[in-house]
């Protein structure tokens, strides 16, 4: 009973946080007039749950050796990562205004060590997942207690390296590795299942000896529950297939291919902020 109530409180808190994260995403991409809003917004609830509930991290000690590791394998969606890091206190919120600008630590695709809290360089799809496997192998090798989390795009699973990484995670018994697949069913050129049919994704990962959890990636209670179960699962790496909506939270972006990599103009920003405010209870 008591536990139930505290979980409800956490979920309520995370739902509010996710709105702040979304607001920062659209604001920074508008300011940069460049970047990828669709995949940032679809991952916002997952990322908020990770950064404000699940990850054992300390913004004052970004290099803390025992910290949980996180890699955004779908690196183009870094506005959501930067928003979480800033709101968590890794660097000032004002820094978000420098996204993609000359000499910013917030590069168009994240570079390890450029900004506090970023341990892996990503942007070429598929390369983040292998690095997450490498980190998880390190934790096993040194008997460290840290967990490794990574977020993948569904289009990203087209890349062969994703499946190479999946096989190696099984080989090295990486039950300290949790992947979340942002299943928004859109990629750059169109509908994911038309570009390259990857279903049944759950059966594929099961065949690679992963434990699979399927959820609605916008139901915060489910997201938190799945992440906790994944963290505590032993014996296998875990993938959470999160069904999501690309552009989630901004009416005109939801499920629209054209918002994969395009910034909103002033008018569109105003509508987006109105939409996100409206979603505040």
């Amino acid at each position, binding site marked *: 009973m008591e536990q139930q109530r505290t979980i409800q409180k956490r979920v309520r808190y995370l739902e509010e946080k996710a709105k702040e994260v979304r607001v920062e995403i659209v604001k920074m991409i508008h300011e*940069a007039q*460049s*970047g990828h809003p669709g995949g940032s917004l679809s991952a916002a609830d997952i990322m908020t749950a990770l950064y404000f509930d699940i990850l054992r991290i300390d913004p004052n000690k970004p290099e803390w050796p025992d910290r949980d590791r996180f890699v955004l394998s779908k*690196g183009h969606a870094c506005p959501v990562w930067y928003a979480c890091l800033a709101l968590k206190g890794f660097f000032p919120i004002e820094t978000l205004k420098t996204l*993609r*600008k*000359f*000499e*910013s630590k917030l*590069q*168009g*695709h994240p*570079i390890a060590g450029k900004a506090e809290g970023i341990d892996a*360089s*990503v*942007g*070429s*799809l*598929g390369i983040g997942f292998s690095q997450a496997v490498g980190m998880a192998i390190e934790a096993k090798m040194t008997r460290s207690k840290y967990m490794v989390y990574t977020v993948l795009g569904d*289009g*990203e699973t*087209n*890349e*062969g390296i994703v499946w190479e990484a999946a096989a190696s995670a099984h080989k090295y018994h990486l039950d300290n590795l949790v992947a979340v697949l942002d299943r928004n069913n859109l*990629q*750059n*050129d*169109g509908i994911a299942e038309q*570009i*390259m049919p990857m279903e049944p994704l759950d059966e594929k990962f099961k065949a690679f000896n992963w434990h699979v959890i399927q959820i609605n990636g916008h139901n915060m209670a489910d997201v938190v529950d799945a992440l906790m179960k994944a963290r505590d699962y032993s014996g296998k790496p875990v993938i959470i297939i999160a069904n999501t909506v690309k552009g989630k939270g901004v009416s005109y972006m939801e499920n629209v*291919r054209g918002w994969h*990599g395009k910034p909103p103009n002033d008018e569109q920003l105003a509508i987006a902020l109105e939409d996100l405010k409206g979603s505040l209870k």
Partner: protein
Amino acid sequence: MSTANRRRLSIGEAFAPRLIFGETLVELGEAYPRLVVLDADVGASTQTALFRDAYPNRFYQIGIAEANMVGIAAGLSTQGWIPFVSTFAIFLTKRAGDQVRNTIAYPRANVKLNGAYGGLPTGRAGASHSSIEDIAVMRAVPHMPVIVPADPVETRAAVEAVMRIPGPVYLRTVRCPVPVIFGEHEPFEFGKAKLIHDGDDAVIISTGMMTPKALQAAGKLGKQYGIRTAVIHMGTVKPLDIEAVIAASERYGHILTVENHSVIGGLGDAVAAAVSEHAPCRVTKLGFQDVFLESGDDEALFSRYGMNVDQIVERVREIAQGKGRRE
């Protein structure tokens, strides 16, 4: 080939070469019934989407799987099809580098490769997308010609020419708008340097989108400093027009190369290698100096790396004044 409805390309107007590439592919679809186009989920960006819409049955969307795409193209070519493979230069030449080398170049497969988003202009994407070493990589692969058009007119002519060259070709195109410098009917001559501005005092050898900048620099040098500067455009970086390089070496004694690429392994090194073997002279290479590129506005970044028009002017002035020469 029906070219009646072609976009007019007037000197001074700017167009994104990627758009010209996509439109030209559509024209070629009619002329070459065996032409097939493959893309890796960036067709909306590289503009092969235009071909997809015009010839849906000859377009293959392979998804985000560049290595597989190149392998599939090789397979199609063994059966007499002519695949034009397109994706960002960075992924085509590195992620799929093994397939390019072993399944396309080695057997001389008749596969055309479009490396889109060549060099710096990536729309602020940063290091992961800035292809600064693709010319070097592709030059080093045996059997692989490397074509780097200067402007929209040459891009169109080069895409057409690529279809006439037997075997593999690497074509490098850029994302940002580039001003037209050639008259609309200027032909593309494979393997030939082009003197586009003459002058007795200094010489620039440039390639790709840096040629319009070099041309602008030559204009300024003449007007503001009375330095008459020749600009030689290398639309083909491999095979290099060695005769033209030798002639430049003998006439000027010091060559400035300018390219939207690393100074390691690109046009500058090709020119330097040619002169050191045949007609030694100094070569100053303007390009990215062994660095990863940052995110930012294209022009701000070109300035950051010492490659805007005024910086080209400065380098030529130094050369014309005989500065920087080791005694």
